[in-house]
């Protein structure tokens, strides 16, 4: 806590894999997460079914903040549990976080 940095992991994944990923993260010790329903598209410009083109596909975004040391295991868990091998499995982005505060106690750190 405190002295080492923190990272925010944002994973855009298939909505149907959210529970699997959340359970896997919980088993790995990462209980806290925030989930957002989002729409977007990837390199494939959405999906084409017959003549119908779906520009934006529904996805879920999971947001997790971890200490630097836990970054690799957390990313690995998400990667492995969200993978189906098909196009559209999603992406994981990692960004730095300078500070974190718990509102209930007002303390700094995760």
């Amino acid at each position, binding site marked *: 806590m405190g002295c080492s940095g*923190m990272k925010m992991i944002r994973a855009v994944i298939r909505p149907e894999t959210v529970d699997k990923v959340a359970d896997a993260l919980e088993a790995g010790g990462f209980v*806290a997460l*925030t989930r957002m329903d989002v729409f977007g598209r990837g390199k494939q410009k959405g999906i084409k079914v017959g003549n119908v083109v779906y520009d934006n596909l529904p996805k879920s975004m999971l*947001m997790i903040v971890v200490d630097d040391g836990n970054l690799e295991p957390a990313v690995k868990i998400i990667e492995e549990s969200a993978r189906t091998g098909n196009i559209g499995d999603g992406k994981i982005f990692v960004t730095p*976080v300078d*500070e974190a505060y*718990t509102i*209930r106690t*007002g303390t700094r750190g995760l």
Partner: protein
Amino acid sequence: MKEVLSILQMNKMDATKDALEVIGIPAITAYKVTGRGKQKGLQIPSPSQLDQSDKKRMKYLPKRMISLMVEDEFVPAVVAVITKVNRTGNFGDGRIFVCPVDEAVRIRTGARGNEAIS
């Protein structure tokens, strides 16, 4: 420039917005999110009678997330205001994350950096 991301209780949104307006930061982006913290969501009836079945557990709780882009020197004030308004002392009050932001652009004028967010 920093992004102050905070996850709050839904019923504190109005109070938070009012308080932020008072210190001169009216611009926010709000998201409806769900999530959980260290307590693994909500256990019913109480954590001491914890039944492991998912039926007695609310896995994700509805929350609001607000994102504010502020200049570096305002960060402590914003964090203090959000903490003060939202603290009830109970679990679920929320969290604040401060993240670095490289660039901002005001689309209407093309202004960049701090000028774009002030």
